[in-house]
C-alpha cells in the first residue's frame, strides 16, 4: 500500500539581496533543508562551486522564525506556507 507524501508550499526563496526571488511549490514535506538548497541552486542560477572547484556553502535563513535552519531539518517541520527563505553563501574575496 502506498502512502503519498504531503507537499509544502508555496514558499519564496531569495538570494542574499532579495533581488533574485523565486516562488516554490510542491516540495515534499519530508525533504530536508539541505535538499532544498541542492534542488534550487540550478533553477535560481546560483553558483555551486568556488573558483577552486570546492562546493559553495549556503546557509538557509527563515525570515518568519528569524533563524538559520539546520541542514537536516525536514521541510514539514520547519516551514509554513508563504514562508520566505534566504540563501546566504559563505564567499571569499581576495588576491586569489
Amino acid at each position: 500500500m502506498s502512502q503519498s507524501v504531503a507537499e509544502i508550499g508555496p514558499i519564496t526563496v531569495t538570494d542574499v539581496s532579495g533581488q533574485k526571488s523565486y516562488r516554490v511549490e510542491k516540495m515534499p514535506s519530508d525533504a530536508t533543508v539541505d535538499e532544498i538548497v541542492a534542488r534550487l541552486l540550478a533553477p535560481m542560477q546560483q553558483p555551486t562551486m568556488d573558483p577552486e572547484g570546492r562546493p559553495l556553502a549556503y546557509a538557509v535563513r527563515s525570515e518568519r522564525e528569524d533563524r538559520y535552519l539546520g541542514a537536516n531539518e525536514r521541510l514539514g517541520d520547519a516551514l509554513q506556507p508563504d514562508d520566505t527563505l534566504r540563501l546566504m553563501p559563505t564567499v571569499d574575496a581576495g588576491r586569489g
Partner: protein
Amino acid sequence: MTESRYRFLAALTADDGSPIGAAAIAPDWFPAEEAVRFQALRCNRPIGAGTRELCEPVWDGQAGEPYVVSVRLSLGDDAAGAPAALLPITYFAPQAQAAAAQFVQQGKLREGDVFRYRIAALPLPDESAAIGGAREGDWIVEEVSPSPISGERRIAEMLAGSRHAGQSDEADFPVLLPASILAQAEELKTAANENETGGVLIGHLWRDTEGPELLLEVTALVPALHTIAQSTRLTFTPQTWDAVRGTIALRGRGEIMCGYWHSHPSRYWCKCEPEAQKSCPLGRQFFSADDRAVHRAVFSRAFHVALVTGDRPRQEGGWAMEHACYGWRCGTIEARGYHVADTA
C-alpha cells in the same frame, strides 16, 4: 533561461599551437541573460512572462564552423531591435579554465602551462533546443523577482557637479557615489593594516524622469561585520549579509544592496626593494578570480558594482591608495567608470 540549439566545446592548444584536446563545456548563461534583460530595462521595454533568451553562434570567418568569434544572446521575441548581447570569447574563460584543469588531471597539460582556447559550437543531434539550468522534477519554481527600480529622479541634475573617475565606456549606465564613501573606504583600509577588509554598497537604482536611462546611486558603504579577514583573503559569512540587511532596515530608506567594497592591501603584499616597488605588478588594480566569484554569487544583477581600494606605488616612493570600480558588461566583469559627488 537560455535556449540553445547548440552544445559548446572548448578546444585547447598549447602555446606552440599543438593541440591539447577539446572538452564539452556548460556555459554559465545567467550573466549574459542579465545583460540582455538589463538592456531591456534600460530601454523601458517590457519582457513577457516566460520569455527565454536565444543563443546563436557567430562563426569565425577565418577558422570557419564550428569555431565561433562570439555568441549572440537575444531575448526570444524576435522583434526588430530586440535587446541582444554579443558575448566575447572571454565570456567562456572560466569554462576553458575548467577544461584545462581536466587536461591537467589527464596528464595532457601541466599545472601552470600556458594554453590557448577556442570555442566551438556543434548542433544538437536531435534538433531539440537545450534549455539552460536544471529541471526540478515535480517542484514548481517560478521567478518572482521584484523590480530593482526605486523610483524616478532627474539624472542630469544628480550628476551635475560630479566628477568622472575610472575607465569610461559609453555602453555603461551611470553610477554615482559620494566622495565620503571613498574617504570612508580609505579609513577602513588604513585601520585594517595588512588585512583585507570590506563592506556592502547600498543605494538606489533610479529611472530618469527625462527618458528611459537608469542611474545607480550608491548612498552608503556598510562595513562588513562577522567576516574572517586575512592579508590576502576576506571571507563574507551569512552573518555578514544578515547584519547588512539589518542596517538597511534600520535606515528605513528603501535602499537595496547594490554591490560590495573590499580592500587590496598591496603595500603589505609587495616584498620588492623600494626601487622595484614602482613596477611591482601587485601595485596595479585588479579584480581576482575570487573577487569575481563573490560578485557572481551575491551581486549577479547587471547593475551591481564592486569597488576595490588598493595601493599604487608612488614615483617618489611609498604607496598611495587608489580606487577602482568594476561592473557587469555583456555578462563579464570589467573595470568601469563612476561619478563622484562632493559631499558637504
